[in-house]
């Protein structure tokens, strides 16, 4: 498994953990404990765990040697970045258009919806980027060995 694959795994794991824990926390606070929605949303703080994914480049040091990545690696990374952006744009499109169509033109929504959309788009971009890298290399060490 090469450095890029390890970084992709690291990012995918922390983003998944953050989103899962945040969803569970919000569900418990809102459904089980019965707190108001605005207070139950504080469970979203667990999304901060996804930020640990950003430490990947510090934890996995660059491979020794003059050539650390070739054209194939760059191509895979570019494709993964495009896939991540497309997925994020899809999420943004749905999050922007669904409330408009469901609630109608006269309705109002909380301004807190905007940072939620931004966060969802960002997490989607990072997660899909990581998954796209793993898919292109193969999930394990097969063709991605260095």
């Amino acid at each position: 498994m090469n450095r890029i694959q390890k970084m992709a795994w690291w990012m995918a794991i922390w983003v998944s953990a953050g989103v899962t824990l945040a969803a569970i926390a919000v569900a418990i606070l809102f459904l089980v404990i019965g707190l108001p929605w605005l207070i139950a949303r504080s469970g979203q703080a667990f999304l901060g765990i996804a930020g640990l994914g950003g430490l990947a480049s510090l934890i996995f040091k660059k491979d020794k040697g003059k050539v650390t990545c070739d054209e194939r690696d760059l191509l895979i990374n570019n494709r993964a970045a495009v896939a991540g952006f497309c997925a994020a744009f899809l999420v943004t499109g749905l999050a922007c258009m669904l409330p408009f169509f469901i609630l109608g033109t006269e309705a109002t929504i909380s301004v807190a919806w905007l940072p939620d959309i931004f966060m969802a788009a960002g997490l989607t971009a990072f997660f899909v980027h990581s998954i796209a890298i793993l898919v292109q290399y193969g999930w394990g060490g097969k063709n991605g060995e260095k």
Partner: protein
Amino acid sequence: MNSSQKFAWTNLFIIAITLTLVGTTVTILASKHGFPQAFDGLCLFGLLGFLGISSAVFQKKRRQGGVKFDERDQLIYERSLTAAYSVFWLFFAAVCMVPWFVTGLSSPIPSYTLPIILGGGGVLVTVVQSVSILVQYGWRAKDNE
């Protein structure tokens, strides 16, 4: 002028025409009927749909082999996309976070704000991509035929 430059110029032309028409129409309607009736002029944003046609035309020519598209063109296209998406993220972060910081946690906003953000982001991506293509090739036909 090569096909990428024509594509970029076409996009910029369509966006410029649309914004001009929308601005003029809304101004005229506002002076005659006031707001919110003047917002009816925003339906002219539908003209941006022609962006899809320009993209389809130039991609069809490329697929049919009528247009040469080599590694340099591919690189320029990818760089322009990267520039466009980078600017989009800055724009998106600003429009999502600034109102939240300014107005507070639970202030209401009209639901039509969201499609406006999305549309504005889409137009911005197209403008930045087109300008980036023209900057890399040069604005006119030189050595890029």
